[in-house]
């Protein structure tokens, strides 16, 4: 049980990554690999500030802001200098590897003592539940695990609602239209380059925020922690879309959060069954491949069936 609670907590934290990927990949159709650098950037920035005694809120916010800068950089390289989108992301991701090492000073920063998000949540749990353990539907669970899960869930719900509200404002609607039909959006007088820069900035801000929280949850930041994250986020978005079965904005955002949690639970169960952790990324990549290709294949076979024999 505590295994599942832990998995769900990570699922909530990483759903911010999924929301970031949703923004870049689904709204702008921009495979933004900057995410792999900015999640580490968020984690590293927050971790090093926490180690130096900075307030957890400020440290987390700093991680988030650093991600926004990284995303904006990718957007500027792409729109102002005309570099291919994927390559712009790769350039920034590669540069971030060195920058992250500089920020962290070494390849791994442990958060052994001191205040952070998790300790806040745990303290809250002990005071609310009034004991070390709580009984949930017949299971004894540690109060601090449960309260961390709830705090993470509430925090993510708050961010998801803010994102939803933003995407329905004038600016946010223009942003969605940019990915949909950039010709139309230019014709309505919007600088679509600026929209992409802003969108990638928000996307990477979310990803870095996810990293900052993850570091505090798992108790360390590691310079390698970003590898494969884009595909993991994508997997969550795809699972989420399958869960809600529509492309409507509110549903898709909810789906991405649910998808991320479900994905983490699946991973936890798979590991429990004895799947080799080294194979996780291979399996995830294969899953995303199938999910990307399958709809097209299904459509093709359906068309072939529809075609009359003597056409």
């Amino acid at each position: 049980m505590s295994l599942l609670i832990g998995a769900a907590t990570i699922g909530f934290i990483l759903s911010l990554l999924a929301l970031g990927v949703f923004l870049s990949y689904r709204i702008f159709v921009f495979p933004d690999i900057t995410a792999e650098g900015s999640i580490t950037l968020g984690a590293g920035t927050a971790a090093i500030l926490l180690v130096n005694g900075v307030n957890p809120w400020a440290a987390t916010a700093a991680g988030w802001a650093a991600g926004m800068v990284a995303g904006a950089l990718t957007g500027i390289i792409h729109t102002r200098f005309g570099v291919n989108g994927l390559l712009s992301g790769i350039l920034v991701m590669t540069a971030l590897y060195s920058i992250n090492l500089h920020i962290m000073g070494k390849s791994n920063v442990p958060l052994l003592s001191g205040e952070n998000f998790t300790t806040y949540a745990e303290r809250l749990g002990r005071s609310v539940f009034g004991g070390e353990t709580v009984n949930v539907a017949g299971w004894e669970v540690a109060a601090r695990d449960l309260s961390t899960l709830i705090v993470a869930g509430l925090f993510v719900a708050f961010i998801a609602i803010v994102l939803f509200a933003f995407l329905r404002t004038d600016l946010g609607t223009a942003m969605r239209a940019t990915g949909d039909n950039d010709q139309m959006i230019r014709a309505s007088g919007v600088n679509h380059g600026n929209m992409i820069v802003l969108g990638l900035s928000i996307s990477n801000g979310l990803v870095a925020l996810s990293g900052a929280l993850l570091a505090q949850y798992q108790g360390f930041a590691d310079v390698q922690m970003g590898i494969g994250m884009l595909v993991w986020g994508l997997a969550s978005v795809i699972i989420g879309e399958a869960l809600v079965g529509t492309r409507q904005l509110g549903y898709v955002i909810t789906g991405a959060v649910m998808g991320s949690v479900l994905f983490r639970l699946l991973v936890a169960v798979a590991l429990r069954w004895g799947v080799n952790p080294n194979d996780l990324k291979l399996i995830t990549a294969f899953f995303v491949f199938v999910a990307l290709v399958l709809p097209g294949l299904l459509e093709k076979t359906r068309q072939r069936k529809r075609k009359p024999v003597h056409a």
Partner: protein
Amino acid sequence: MLEVRGVHKTFYAGTPNEVRSLQGVTLSIAEGSFVIVIGTNGCGKSTLLNAVSGTFLVDAGTIRLDGHDITRWPEYKRAPMIGRVFQNPFSGTSPNLTIAENLALASRRGHRRGLGSIRSDKLMAEMRERVSRLNMGLETRLDDPIGTLSGGQRQALTLMMATWVKPKLLLLDEHTAALDPKSADQVIRLSEEEISRARLTSLMVTHSMQQAVNLGDRLIMMHRGRVLHDFEGAEKRRLRAADLLARFEEVRRADRLDESAAEMLRRVYV
């Protein structure tokens, strides 16, 4: 209102694929006039409209609109002054956004995009009113994604979006060519109504001789990146489809002559 002077545009300059799409177009359009543009395929009609709206920057010449020299302006900066409807019904609207969201974006053409809500009650009421005037039954579907509509419906909405904020110049590029005859008629009728109601300065490209003679108060015929004929006033009113076809035939014969001359030169000198 619109002043195009000596505009040149060459694509893929200096390569074997070089296309000289505009070779010195000069054109001056008075406020409130409705100009029809005709010409053979590839003569540069769309390129001219794209040059005016800033899809690309021209190689030479100047473009002035409403007293501004817009020659070097990026597209989004010209957009507040220009309404456009494209040939492709998919080009003018954002398919995953709802009808209301598309219209709301268009209603703020040229405004800064802020964090305000996009759907005020007042705007929604105005949308319902304007959309119901189309008689397409769309007023009850304002919250449907626009991608679920037919080409004719989308084109009618694109026209509405292009003219919601009154543009200084309306550009229509074969905007009914991809529609079935009934929808095409309907969209043409809507265009005509809106142009005369709001006294819009307009440029409309068409391949339909019927539209060319029936609509507009001026007609220009382009050929090989230049304006070849320009009919105005009484002359335009007297034009019949047969006259236009005769002009096309002339052009075709001249082209063939050119070709045979080139062929002869090639035989002699190469």
